[in-house]
């Protein structure tokens, strides 16, 4: 997630984005202070979390949710809040930092 960032001599001037369609490369997960930790064993696959996720960070495949995409998750905690079986816990991001 923590891709090495470029120095001031290496980036285009004025913050210009010189490659089209590059927003997918812009990782915003590092804005997060809390990380949703999902317990797949307790999950009943009700799919409330992917529907409510404002960042579309929880993809669904074959009727089942996948792991949260931490490159875009801002840690808002809506998924944990709407979960009827409380299988998502918000953990402090600092715990996961090296």
């Amino acid at each position, binding site marked *: 997630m923590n891709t090495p960032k470029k120095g*001031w001599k290496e*980036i*285009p*001037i004025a913050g*210009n*984005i010189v490659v*089209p369609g590059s927003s997918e490369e812009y990782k915003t997960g590092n804005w997060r202070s809390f990380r949703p930790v999902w317990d797949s064993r307790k999950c009943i696959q009700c799919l409330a979390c992917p529907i409510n996720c404002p960042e579309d960070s929880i993809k669904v495949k074959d009727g089942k949710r996948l792991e949260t995409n931490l490159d875009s998750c801002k840690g808002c905690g809506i998924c944990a809040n709407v979960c009827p079986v409380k299988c998502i816990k918000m953990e402090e991001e600092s715990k996961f930092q090296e």
Partner: protein
Amino acid sequence: MAKTVPFTGAQAAAYAMKQINPEVVAAYPITPQTSIMEEFSQYVADGDVDTEFIRVESEHSAMSATSGASAAGVRAMTATSSAGLALMFEIVGVTSGLRLPVVMNIVNRALSAPINIHCDHNDSMACRDSSWIQIYSENAQEVYENTLLALRLAEKVLLPVMVMQDGFITSHSVENVTLQDDNTVKKFIGNPPERPHLLDIEKPITIGPLQLFDYYFETKRQQADAMEQAYKEYPKLAKELSDITGTNHGFFEKYRLDDAEAAVITLNSTAGTAKAVIDKMREKGKKVGLLKLRLFRPFPYKEIAKALEKIKSIAVLDRSESYGANPPILAEIKNALFDSSSKPSVQSCIFGLGGRDIWEKDIEKVFDDLLAGKINSTTKYIGLR
């Protein structure tokens, strides 16, 4: 062939714009700038320029349209004064932040309140930290030449440039101005350089995206570097212009300064008054001189420190206030002297706010006080009741 004509400072600015022939000019009338755009819109109406002249609803829009046009890749210019510049302020920072080589003539006028249409420098001085290059002009001749120089400098380092002249004193007074012929100017300004722009469909780009704690700092560092580049490029371009015009375009002008014991430092039209005083006092054997600032951003600290090395006492004449702090020019002169081995006595003077006249006798008094050692640490307000 160069020709000499009777021109006001406003006409001189408009004529430089005519010769630059920018693709877009967007402006809103404000006294005393209006005279520039009146003159320029006549050139547009007469078909003397190819410019698309956009009459906008405010200065905020004027600066927005100008920077938008510049972001689209063309030469774009505007002009304003006082409250107009204040209203532009948000987009003033956007223009430099986007590294757009816009050139803007500023006709210096006091800021409200109280409302006042006459000259002081608080409008442009309020923009001294906005990452715009600032060039100040003593007279209509300098307005004309500085505007041409500004374009070259802007396009060289990709920063916008403000060219200042005193409201009414310069903008509305007729002087002899020597104009270069169109071909000479065309050759001097050249073609606009290749730079990233919005209408390049071969290389589509985004201008002005969000940058947070991850890259904003790096982008601002680049801007500081661009100012460094402007400091290095200015003398080269200035020499190129001087070779054509025969006029001096140093960072600043030294007037009878080298052997002076007492010196005045100021900018814009008051430098002319100071020269007249100096000539008269020199005839009486008094060793007085002037350092007239031109380039205020970037500020040439080292060169100024060197120029002041042998001066015993200095009076800095600011036509603007920095309430609760040293006025703008004084602050920079003191900064320059901090790293200098010589430590002249420095007298702070503020004059001319809201267009209050400064007379020859006032400047003579400043020199007499310096020569008599009547220098104190508090600011002298010249002409204040």
